[in-house]
């Protein structure tokens, strides 16, 4: 496997040769931040395009096909349009919070995004408590949504924010439980270590039954966490116009929109990392020739392929199922997913203790 840390170490040494260490580190931080934001924006564009095409396929349409070949420049045109639109200031609202809210949402999702290990040696934030930190970072986004709903001075926004808050706080529990199930199998929370331990076999195969149950729970809860799919009632058009971002216009609306799509990618990337092996190629224990061939495919290709596969699963769910009601969503979480998650964790504990996993 190609180790990306060779490149970063070479670059660090290059900078150190003519700069003091503090300045070099600062410069590296700035460059990494720029790369991160660029990747963030490009991924959002790719996801929006994919969403339109997938949605069109499920509704027997063609989707965007006028701007560029297969309409691939449509999203960039939309981004330019969004950037040039006026940001409307509304009266009788708390301006400061109204303007701050989209940035809180984006900061939370950038923090969570920077935890994903893309390639070997290409982790930006790789703490010992990586999984825990990622959940902590993504839990901040709900503050931004609540603030947006309240400061818009609009009852639809407020109701949307309330629904979104209740839903995200509830479903965080299921996400935590299903991730914890896998952490029990790995006995580490560091992302690079989690990926390393899947060198012989991915966790979804290693942990067989409980890992599979955890994966399904994770997909359902992840969909709810990003306010998408059958759980998109915080922004249900027919009831609430657009939910918590009704009053937002221009790039402030764009930030919410982008954050929503990248949050979906984060959920998918997380699923790919902890269940499907992250950048680790598909290895079958015993077949050394096959494994060697698989190693020729670079890690980031594996990572993005798996992540986009999970994104496709999430979109499939979204465009297939009708929207749920609020009480149904909360019932599903508290009466079904949380108990199943707890029992599943117990099952995983038994399997780990008796060494019944592969």
């Amino acid at each position, binding site marked *: 496997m190609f180790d990306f840390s060779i490149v970063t170490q070479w670059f660090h040494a290059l900078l150190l040769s003519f700069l003091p260490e503090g*300045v070099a580190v*600062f410069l590296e931080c700035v460059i990494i931040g720029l790369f991160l934001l660029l990747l963030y924006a490009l991924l959002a564009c790719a996801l929006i395009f994919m969403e339109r095409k997938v949605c069109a396929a499920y509704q027997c349409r063609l989707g965007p096909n006028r701007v560029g070949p297969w309409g691939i420049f449509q999203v960039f045109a939309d981004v330019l349009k969004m950037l040039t639109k006026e940001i409307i200031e509304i009266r009788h609202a*708390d301006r400061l*919070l109204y303007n701050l809210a989209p940035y809180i949402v984006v900061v939370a999702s950038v923090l969570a995004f920077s935890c994903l290990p893309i390639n070997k040696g290409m982790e930006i934030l790789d703490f*010992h408590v990586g999984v825990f*930190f990622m959940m902590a970072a993504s839990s901040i986004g709900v503050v931004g949504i609540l*603030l947006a709903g309240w400061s818009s001075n609009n009852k639809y926004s407020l109701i949307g924010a309330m629904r979104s*808050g209740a839903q995200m706080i509830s479903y965080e529990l299921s996400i935590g439980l299903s991730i914890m199930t896998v952490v029990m199998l790995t006995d580490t929370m560091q992302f690079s270590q989690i990926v390393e331990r899947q060198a012989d076999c991915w966790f979804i195969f290693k942990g067989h039954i409980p890992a599979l149950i955890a994966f399904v729970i994770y997909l359902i809860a992840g969909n709810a966490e990003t306010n998408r799919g059958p759980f998109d009632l915080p922004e249900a058009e027919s009831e609430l116009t657009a939910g918590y971002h009704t009053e937002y216009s221009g790039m402030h609306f764009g930030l919410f929109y982008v954050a929503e799509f990248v949050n979906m990618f984060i959920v998918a990337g997380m699923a790919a990392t902890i269940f499907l092996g992250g950048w680790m190629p598909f290895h079958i224990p015993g077949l050394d020739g096959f494994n060697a061939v698989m190693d020729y495919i670079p890690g980031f290709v594996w990572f993005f392929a798996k992540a986009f596969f999970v994104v496709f699963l999430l979109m499939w769910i979204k465009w297939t199922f009708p929207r749920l009601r609020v009480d149904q969503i909360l019932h599903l979480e508290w009466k079904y997913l949380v108990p199943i998650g707890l029992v599943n964790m117990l099952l995983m504990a038994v399997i780990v203790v008796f060494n019944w996993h592969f």
Partner: protein
Amino acid sequence: MNISLQFLVFLFMALVMVVFSILTVTTRRILRAATYLLIVLFCTAGIYFQLDYSFLGSVQLLIYAGGITVLYVFSILLTSAQGDRADRLPAGKFFAGFCATLAGLALCLFITLKHRFLMPQPIAGELDVKQIGFTLLSGDKYGYVLPFEAISLLLLACIVGGILIARKR
């Protein structure tokens, strides 16, 4: 004078913390106070990360920034309307609060400056989570199993109390 990047980052976070702490208690709009508090908690977590104690930093983010603040904001959304403002403090109350703050500051400064700190023996890199976990659940000397269990009892009491209050009958 040699100013390191670490020191500059600390200075920045400390400044933000001080400014937003003062804003938290002086603003008259309650939701703004909650937002400023969120920023203060962010910077506290940042300082923990700077000290290479990422576990405590993550806990700070998850429990305080992501948990407690959300709870505050949620309850504010349910109880206060747009445009609500707190009344101005009467001069007497303001003066009393100011005096109490000064006394607290004096006490903190006295203890910090007077205390003879032992030379720290920093461990390179992050603290291993495994070590934290074993210490938290060990019953030996310097083990924390008793406070851990006591806190879980407290949380259980809170949950039961919450159900009792929220029950319809």
